[in-house]
């Protein structure tokens, strides 16, 4: 079976600086793939490349369609939701408005109301704060809002960029638990970029390790967990 998302020999640039040097990765239908690596390895760029936010070469396929060369707005309409690093919430708008925007690209407006319920079930705290301006939420709450907003698209594929960044361990575990539930119950495939390798490898079924824009190790998450080099450098034991 062909994977849901597949990037082949992907290269990406910021201006004249080449950040990805021929990276290949895939996300299976219903699977969770994680991309690990240190700061500056190109993890975020890989996600941005999928969404058409950086200049790329190589090929990106999603359900048999080419993504490279498409505008971000059109890629979103194919069912790819991106919760970006730094959360990318609309800090001047209310929680509810942020969620409404998450469903902006959908055509089935009638079913959006039900999705508010569904998202509030995952994140009851957002329901309490639905009239509050997003900028007044704590970091963890904003991260939850970012994930919730992405879910409002009813995506096929969820791109998560460092959801653990700067959050308390308890909050991080909660977010990861919800991502696992979404993946299992709704068959939403996930591409997760993380620095916290231990958490990410627990969640994912497939993993890639990036170093300075190249894939150095890849394979089933369980195998990477046992890999000595990875254990020493990224898991720290």
């Amino acid at each position, binding site marked *: 079976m062909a994977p849901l998302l597949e990037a082949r020999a992907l290269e990406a640039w910021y201006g004249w600086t080449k950040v990805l040097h021929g990276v290949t990765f895939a996300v299976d239908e219903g699977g969770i793939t994680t991309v690990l690596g240190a700061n500056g390895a190109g993890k975020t760029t890989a996600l941005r490349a999928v*969404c058409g936010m950086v200049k790329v070469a190589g090929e990106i396929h999603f359900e048999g369609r080419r993504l490279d060369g498409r505008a*971000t*707005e059109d890629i*979103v309409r194919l069912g790819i939701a991106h919760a970006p690093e730094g959360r990318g919430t*609309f*800090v*001047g708008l209310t929680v509810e*408005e942020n969620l409404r925007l998450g469903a*902006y690209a959908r055509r089935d407006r009638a079913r959006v109301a039900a999705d508010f319920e569904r998202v509030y079930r995952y994140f009851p705290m957002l329901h309490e704060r639905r009239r509050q301006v997003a900028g007044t939420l704590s970091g963890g709450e904003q991260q939850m809002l970012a994930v919730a907003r992405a879910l409002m*698209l009813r995506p096929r594929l969820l791109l998560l960029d460092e959801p653990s960044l700067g959050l308390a361990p308890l909050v991080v575990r909660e977010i990861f638990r919800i991502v696992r539930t979404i993946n299992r119950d709704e068959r939403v495939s996930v591409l997760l970029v993380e620095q916290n390798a231990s958490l990410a490898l627990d969640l994912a079924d497939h993993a890639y390790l990036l170093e300075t824009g190249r894939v150095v190790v890849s394979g089933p998450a369980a195998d990477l967990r046992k890999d000595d080099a990875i254990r020493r450098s990224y898991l720290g034991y």
Partner: protein
Amino acid sequence: MDVFLQQVVSGLATGGIYASLALSLVMIYRATDVVNFAQGEMAMFSTYLAWSIMNHGAPYWLAFVLTVVIAFVGGLALERLIIRPVEDAPVLAIVIVTLGLLVIFNSVAGWAYSYIIQPFPSPFPRTPIRIGRIVFGPHDLGVIGVTLLMLALLWLFFRFTSLGLALRAAAQNPAASRLVGIRVGWMLALGWGLAALIGAVAGMMVAPIIFLEPNMMSGILIYAFASATLGGFTSPGGAVLGGFLVGVIENLAGTYVSFIGTDLKLTLALLVIIVVLLVKPSGLFGQAVVRRV
């Protein structure tokens, strides 16, 4: 007391016009960080359009509606064709482009319609309205009504429609907006269209008071700048309140401070700008912009 009330009402009427124009300035500023110096001339040009439609025999409200529609489409086209190519240029370059538009609209209006002052009709009845011993100009009251109605409609649009929400989102965070599927480029164009529309209404409301001629908006634009500065260039509500305040201040100062009269009224607007920039540069309701560098 009667004179005072009358002056306040007529101040509110001109204030409504400043408020409208200030609002269209703020709208474009929030969406694109650009101050559109051509806003006044765009309004003037739209008013001339209304005038020539009426000269072809159309009744007032038909001309009004047609003008508003043409102004909207025109504003949209202006952004797509002229602003879009310089979108990524430094702000100064875009400001120069809007200054260029100002001169072009002004000269084309002068060339097409001449610099002769023309009367422009008011849609409101002529007979003054008496409440107690106080007499109000019907046009003044009408302008206040039209301004408030337009503001209410805009507020409803931005608050309750998903397009309005998308416009706000695009102005606030273009990158995140693209990630939820908003076509940000079109939202900017839509912002220009709406600004042009509001300006057209302001032009048609002020023309019966100051008459129609190519330079009619130059003074009004300075009042609008004063209003937007006073209310805060980032706050639509602030700009509107600023407009009404400037209108009333200007009128009261002109009436009660003998040396100001009509000659120094415009100076007062500039004084407002300077004082606000010295005391509270972000205006009454604006947010101080903090940029990470």
